[in-house]
């Protein structure tokens, strides 16, 4: 036991493991760049859809259930399907991660807009505000905490699933785990797992801080109730770590 942990410490302190294209520094950069790109793409696709559906109140059942369905589809399968469609490497990883990040953002931005008091919207309309202005100036600020909760869920899931993307021959920190498994190298396997766990936990904490910072001060007290894990199947989504 202690010997094993000593080996793990030695693995981390070997400078060769940090340098080069297969080193920790490069794998970490890959991991975060891919996760960031996938989350931003998903946000660009999902946020307008969720906001507009929320504003019009249409397709609510679809918007709410898309993330329940998303939870049932294994991210493992999405990655492998991606590899069948786009070949191996970065492309299937990117597409799969975007696909996994879209549902929670759609559902949360839809729910966020729907929960805005309809009287407030009617008052804004009475003041002569156009629909676009109502969405941008009235509904969106109130929806921010829930939208950010969705982004947080999606971001954490993306970072987690990126750790699995090594199975489709992409890099990232999951490389150490998959290579460790393939080579029966438990020290590398364990060290890689520590790295993947650390980036996921940091992402969760980091996006939590962003969520707080972006929440309008007046809504901050209420937003502490917006947790990442739903208490009802129809509520805001949180597909498990991949």
């Amino acid at each position, binding site marked *: 036991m202690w010997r094993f942990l000593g080996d793990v410490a030695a693995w981390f302190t070997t400078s060769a493991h940090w340098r080069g294209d297969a080193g920790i520094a490069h794998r970490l950069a890959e991991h975060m760049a891919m996760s960031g790109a996938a989350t931003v793409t998903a946000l660009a696709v999902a946020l307008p859809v969720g906001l507009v559906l929320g504003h019009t109140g249409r397709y609510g059942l679809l918007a709410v259930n898309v993330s329940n369905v998303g939870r*049932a589809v*294994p991210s493992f399968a999405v990655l*492998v399907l991606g590899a069948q*469609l786009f070949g191996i490497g970065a492309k299937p990883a990117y597409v799969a991660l975007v696909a996994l990040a879209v549902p929670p953002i759609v559902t949360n931005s839809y729910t966020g807009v729907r929960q805005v008091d309809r009287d407030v919207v009617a008052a804004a309309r009475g003041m002569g505000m156009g629909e676009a202005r109502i969405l941008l100036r009235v509904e969106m600020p109130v929806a921010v905490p829930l939208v950010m909760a969705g982004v947080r869920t999606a971001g954490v899931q993306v970072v987690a699933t990126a750790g699995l993307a090594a199975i489709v021959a992409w890099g990232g920190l999951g490389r150490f785990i998959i290579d460790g498994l393939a080579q029966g190298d*438990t020290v590398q396997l*364990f060290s890689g797992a520590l790295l993947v766990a650390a980036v*996921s*936990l940091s992402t969760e904490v980091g996006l939590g801080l962003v969520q707080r910072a972006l929440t309008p001060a007046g809504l901050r007290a209420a937003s502490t109730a917006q947790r990442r*894990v739903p208490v009802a199947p129809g509520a805001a989504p949180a597909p498990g770590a991949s």
Partner: protein
Amino acid sequence: MPLPAPVLGANGPGSWIWWDWVTSHGDTVYAAGREHVILTWWAVVIGLALALPLGVAAWRWHRLAPLVLGVSGVIYTVPAIALFALLVPVTGLSRTTSEIGLVGYTLLILIRNVIAGLDAVPDDVRDAARGMGLTPARMLVRVELPLAVPAIVAGVRIATVTVIGLVTVTALIGQGGFGQLIYDGLLRDFRTPLVLGTVLSVALAATADLALVLLERVLTPWSRVRAAGR
């Protein structure tokens, strides 16, 4: 890049589904499904057995709540592949490793719902139970927990669907249920088991979810009466 053949119509080794392979591998598919169900069943049952006392404790002694929710929250956030990998040096490439990891993921979901369910018990009901002379322990078992059943079942539904998805990842450490078919599809660049494993895993999640909805109706006959009386 090979162009995807239509799902229906074409039927051969290169198509998305090759029915001849499916019919000749019934045993493989059955064994995978059996393993998927067993892994899920024990993960949820053990998870619930741990989450009920932990949730009740965190609800009764508020100072425990941050600790219980914090630890289960950290486990929940660790990616499945990493959690299984962290356990491999201790429990090897075994079913135990898979089961410990899967149970770990159910805890946050279940504990939060136990607490939410107990919180939602109306104070009037509690006062009435106290007035009838129920001790705190009897009140918990006879009044509070039964009223928390809908919230707990909601948690079990989320946990079950989540676990069914995560079981597929355990294919990497030698289990996997339908995940084995998916992994096989990846390793052999063969679409039929990949599609079959994915579809069956989603179907299993949907079936389990539906079954739990029905179970909740059986467990809480009073909520049906109330709904009908409205």
